[in-house]
């Protein structure tokens, strides 16, 4: 492969998805997705449900295996990277938070750094303090997940993912399970994160967030990238019929 040419052509590129195909049995969910993500870019992925948005994210950290195409992280095919190592470099935040209910907030945060990255406990606790402060939940450090609101849980989940110092963060509908009044606090944390230079891929229906925080909006429908571009262009002057229909339905 001509890696040098690829690197010099887009030295800022951290993630590259080429002709990605994913099938669940007979159901083809991704039918050749192409996407290039630059470092520090925030990509918001929108599109009808069942269109393959979540599946695309889950392929990037290999929670799903794919049948065709390639994904490159910093120029290296992710199939060539140890899967557990890959996952420390690509963090993920889930719709259902998935905090570990038998552990308090601090334990949720420090488990993986200690076990996976061999970080010392003291170091991990120090880092947890910093990140909890950043998401505004330092006072909940010894709380158990069931004592937190949905918004607080998701902010803890974001902090937990950040503990691994990921290069890319994937957000799979992070606010879809939240009561409306709790969505804002999570989106604020994500906006700060985006501004701090984190590379982010966010699957969401929050068009306000897409408009304010996204560098680029990617519209995925029927397993392909139908249209992509800066928020103003996609939201105001979508070119494709499918995009127009989707936006009309969602903005109503």
């Amino acid at each position, binding site marked *: 492969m001509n890696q040098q040419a690829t690197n010099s052509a887009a030295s800022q590129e951290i993630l590259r998805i080429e002709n990605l195909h994913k099938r669940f049995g007979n159901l083809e969910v991704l039918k050749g997705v192409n996407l290039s993500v630059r470092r520090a870019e925030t990509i918001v992925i929108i599109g009808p449900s069942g269109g393959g948005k979540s599946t695309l994210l889950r392929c990037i950290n290999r929670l799903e295996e794919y049948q065709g195409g390639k994904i490159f992280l910093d120029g290296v095919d992710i199939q060539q990277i140890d899967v557990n190592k890959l*996952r420390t470099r690509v963090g993920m935040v*889930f719709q259902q938070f998935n905090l570990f209910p*038998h552990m308090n907030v601090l334990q949720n945060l420090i488990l993986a750094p200690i*076990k996976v990255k061999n970080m010392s406990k003291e170091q991990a606790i120090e880092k947890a303090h910093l990140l909890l402060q950043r998401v505004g939940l330092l006072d909940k450090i010894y709380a158990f997940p069931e004592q937190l609101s949905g918004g607080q849980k998701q902010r803890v989940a974001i902090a937990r993912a950040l503990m691994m110092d990921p290069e890319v963060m994937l957000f799979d509908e992070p606010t879809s399970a939240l009561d409306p009044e709790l969505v804002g606090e999570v989106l604020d944390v994500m906006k700060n994160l985006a501004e701090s230079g984190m590379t982010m891929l966010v699957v969401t229906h929050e068009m306000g967030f897409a408009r304010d925080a996204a560098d680029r909006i990617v519209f995925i429908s029927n397993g392909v990238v139908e249209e992509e571009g800066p928020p103003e262009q996609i939201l105001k002057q979508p070119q494709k019929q499918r995009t127009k229909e989707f936006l009309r339905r969602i903005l109503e």
Partner: protein
Amino acid sequence: MEAFYELLKNFNFLLIGAWETLKLTSFSVGIGLILGTFIGMGRLSRYRIINYPCTAYVEFLRGTPLLVQISIIYFGLPQVGIQLAPYPAAVTALGLNSGAYIAEIVRAGIQSIPRGQYEAARSLGLTHWQSMRYIILPQAFRNILPALGNEFITLTKDSSLASVIGVSELMRSGQFVISRTFQTFSIYFGIAFIYFIMTLVISRIVRYAERRLSVG
């Protein structure tokens, strides 16, 4: 009246047998827990080479009588050159047997934990084993504690079968007393009473542990 007197006179002897029953059961459940945890996980493996043997194990040990299993291990194995004393033979048979039942309990326990827990653990870079050990099994065990308590109670009663190979647990102790006193009714009733008290106490302990854990 004499029947009652003989029971009282030999009650201490029976209690020693009960203590042996408790030890025998505890050892066996200990083995069953270790075995059952691995076989229960193995039952959920997507690799047939792990999955099939584990399933076969569970099916075979649940599908044959414990008395036959004890007989195979104590009377049968010596013919192929493996001679076990009564006590180790009983622990082996009871342990293998409870391993099968506990495997099913563990499997159900693991399946009761939402898939997202495992995915979240893996997405942080934890290996399959680390995810099981730190995330899935601790939650699963909390859920299956009542079922495990049940298994302990069942095995306490089933351990009486070890009497047929001469392990001096409660049942065997009772039979020994009867052979001297001929008081079948009172002694067997006394044995039943002691088994009942033991299982009652165990179920109370389990219920207490359950409540403690659900608070934490």
